[in-house]
């Protein structure tokens, strides 16, 4: 995926050359189903998770559910 424009947060799918759109996506972690807005290719449905998200809020959620 190519990051075309930082300001508009515009991402293009490398395979389909389509602009990613924000869409409610089902996320499953452990036994929980959550629905979150994620960037997605309208053609191939590939979901893009930025490094900021993976190391930010997503990690926070994972830690919140962390077991002992």
């Amino acid at each position, binding site marked *: 995926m190519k990051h075309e424009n930082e300001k508009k947060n515009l991402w293009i799918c490398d395979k389909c050359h389509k602009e990613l759109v924000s869409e*409610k996506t089902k996320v499953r972690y*452990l*036994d*929980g189903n*959550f*629905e*979150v*807005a994620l960037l997605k290719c309208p053609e191939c449905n590939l979901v893009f998770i930025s490094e900021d*998200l993976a190391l930010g*809020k*997503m990690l*926070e*959620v994972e830690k*919140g*559910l*962390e*077991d*002992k």
Partner: protein
Amino acid sequence: MMLLNKQSKIESLCPICLKKIDASIFTEGETSYMMKTCPEHGTFKTVLWRGGIPMGKWVRHKERAYLEKTVTKVDKGCPYDCGLCNEHRQHTCTALIEVTQNCNLQCPFCFADSFAKKGQEPSLNDIRFQYQSVLRVSGTCNIQLSGGEPTVRNDLPEIIKMGVDLGFTFIQVNTNGIRMADDENYVISLKKAGLSSVFLQFDGTHDKIYRKLRGKALFEKKFKAIENCKKYGIGVVLVPTLVPGVNIDNIGEIIKFGIKHVPTVRGVHFQPVSYFGRMPKMPQDKDRITLPEVMTEISKQTDNMILVESMKPPGCENALCSFHGNYIIEENGLMQVTKRSSCCCATEKAEEGANKAKAFVARNWSYYNHNNKDKQQEDCSDWDKILKTIQKSSFSISAMAFQDAWNVNLERIKDCCIHVVTHDGRLIPFCMYNLTNAEGRSLYRN
């Protein structure tokens, strides 16, 4: 009679003279027992594990931890050199400081053998020394202030603040809740001092249980104590002592009561009765309830809302010491966060288990400050909303089986992560500290 495996040969103590003796663990049908013979006092057979999940399958392999700083030297061997010594295999997850031996109840069961009479209490300087001893050996682990009944001390807020100022971030008080019910200003001062959590003695949802176990009707007091914690923002863990013939049939109601009071109530932590300190009589197998039986009752009495499969052995202490399950309370029931099948045969580092357990307790047993978070809800992202749900609606169910002179297994003692701080700065594994022989003589307490 069938031996479980090579590990079934262990070391224990004679319940009469407390000398170290060999013991074996064997299984008959669905029940596992410990059998041991003291050359002087005879043979003792005690139930360890009864019910659905075989004891041999309740495992979590750990690579032992090595303590950087030990307090005592190995001389007579485990369990006579506790302090901790370099034979100990796990770090401190929770350090327990007894701030008084006085109590405002006189329960027929009491592992601390406390009384209503007024005895001398440790000074603030003594307690500072105990905190510092913990810091030296175990760093800023979680702290539980216990007793006796800690709330009989008017200076408990100062004791909490002292711990906070020394760098401890999670301080919990183990209490019967009577003063917290009766004295709202006291609750305010505990909160202001930095109290994170209350470990509330909560044996059931009706007074017949309290009259039997605590000598008087206390349910209203428990309820009021929880209300006051809610009002001033202190997390509560309900702690029932489970005694056969008294409150086993109330397990489901206790859990339902806890869920109803989320997020103030953060979980239920069951303690199957163990026989040390003050007890009404010598224990027989019918007087015990073992961990798999507790799990089965939880499932049965919640109509399978909580499944046995959602409860796991611990990653911190010895697998045979406890179980736990984590849940998120949802509108239509519970989401199970933990699964026993996720415990694989891989070996984990005990040190990592201790770190995770410390973080889990501090995060999940503290109060969730919903008022502040709710104000921000409008500009929350989806991820923030999930985080809020996790923090607000998480609920834990756990149990810890303490060991007494009849069922003590020294392997489990070496893996212990709950350590009582003595007045001279030693750290004693909880069960070893409280263990007494048949006549009430202790190895370490007093």
